[in-house]
């Protein structure tokens, strides 16, 4: 059993996919299926032994935000009626938090470099959250964003940064995939909401930012990943069944993620 749970394919794929599917299917009727992505991610983090909070390293602060994001998403979904500014507001909140996550690294860099790096990460986090939150009412598009961002940041991290971040990224993709599969069946009745949008955008943004700050992946990697929420806005056949819409929008987002992975591979090689 231990050998099985140490297998990277199980850690970053099979186990989080199973958790994502079960969570999405079990919670779809109470409009909490959006917890699938964060649940899958946190399962992988737990199995990899990364789910501790002390000492407060950048990775552990990241884990804290990965718990806070879906919790905040649930609150937004059930306690508020968020308007257009909510995405920007939450994006700004997590942008500041992302600087806090990487503060211990930034303070060791020269002032100019630290400002550019911290500022760049903050803008990226704000962008990703704001544009993903804008699509929170569309479960298929939000799920497709999570799938592509998870795979893109995950494979990119494996190629150019850390295997740990890589597996966490693929786990997020697996959880988002689990949600998408359930959403294909339930169609518009499957709500991802702010719970799913905040989870996938915050977690994937911090994986990509972590690869940049901790492993010096190229800055353009963030710029390319930032296109994924835009790709998810491309038109899909409106009257097509949910499963077909999900496939089409996933193809859009995965195309950008694939381009990013190819460039990451070329840069690494």
């Amino acid at each position, binding site marked *: 059993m231990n050998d099985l749970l*140490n297998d990277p394919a199980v850690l970053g794929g099979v186990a989080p996919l199973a958790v994502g599917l079960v969570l999405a299917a079990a919670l779809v009727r109470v409009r909490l299926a959006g917890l699938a992505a964060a649940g899958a991610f946190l399962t992988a983090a737990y199995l990899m032994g*990364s789910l*501790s909070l002390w*000492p407060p*390293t950048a990775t552990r602060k990241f884990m804290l935000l990965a718990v806070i994001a879906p919790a905040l998403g649930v609150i937004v979904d059930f306690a508020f009626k968020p308007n257009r500014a909510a995405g920007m507001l939450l994006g700004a909140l997590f942008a500041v938090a992302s600087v806090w996550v990487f503060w211990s690294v930034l303070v060791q860099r020269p002032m100019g470099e630290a400002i550019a790096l911290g500022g760049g990460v903050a803008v990226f986090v704000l962008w990703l959250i704001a544009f993903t939150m804008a699509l929170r009412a569309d479960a298929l598009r939000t799920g497709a964003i999570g799938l592509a961002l998870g795979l893109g940041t995950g494979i990119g991290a494996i190629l150019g940064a*850390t295997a*740990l971040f890589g597996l966490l990224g693929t786990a997020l993709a697996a959880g988002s995939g689990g949600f998408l599969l359930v959403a294909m069946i339930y169609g518009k009745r499957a709500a991802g909401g702010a719970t799913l949008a905040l989870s996938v955008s915050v977690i994937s943004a911090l994986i990509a930012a972590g690869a940049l700050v*901790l*492993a010096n992946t190229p800055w353009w990697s963030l710029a390319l990943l930032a296109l994924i929420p835009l790709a998810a806005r491309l038109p899909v056949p409106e009257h097509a069944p949910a499963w077909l819409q999900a496939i089409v929008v996933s193809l859009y987002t995965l195309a950008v993620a694939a381009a990013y992975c190819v460039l990451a591979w070329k840069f690494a*090689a």
Partner: protein
Amino acid sequence: MKRIAVALVAIALPFAAFAAPESFTIDPFHSHPHFQVKHLDFMYMTGRFDKMSGKIVMDTAAKSGTVELAIETGSVNTGDHEKGPRSRSRDEHLKTADFFNVAEFPRMTFKGAAARWTGEWPAAIEGQLTLLGATRPVTLTVENWKCGPDPRTQGKRYMCGGNASGAIKRSEFGMKFGIPNLSDEIRLMIGIEAFRDQ
């Protein structure tokens, strides 16, 4: 009588020198911490850190002493530093957040005190190793410790040196990646030479 007194003082001087705590600075060119990790449960792989600095304070009369070491984690060297067709070399991977997380923790430190003496030299050091932001107790066994004049300087410079060894569980410091294929237990072997401060 005066000559006898001068002679006695001259004979006693080297011993008098040990009567008070003496400070030594690590020779960075001949002092390296090595480590061994068991790979796939088959064999022990060895690596080292190329850069280490530190201070030793010893009082052999009082049988007390302290040591402070600072090791640059970015100087990790396992002999695999060219990535070739791979996406990265092993040394590059060791510097990432999977292992030493050099960007966030560029240094690990050991602060300890001589806990046991054999004759006039320290035999064991008990201290605290700080790695990846976590501090845990570590005991090092000291072997071959000796002090004497540096033969390269015709005795003008005084030095001490020896080997210290111990073991840690890396998971206790939060370094869990690759366990059990890369063993949790890490053997430490630190070779130290240090010059007495003037």
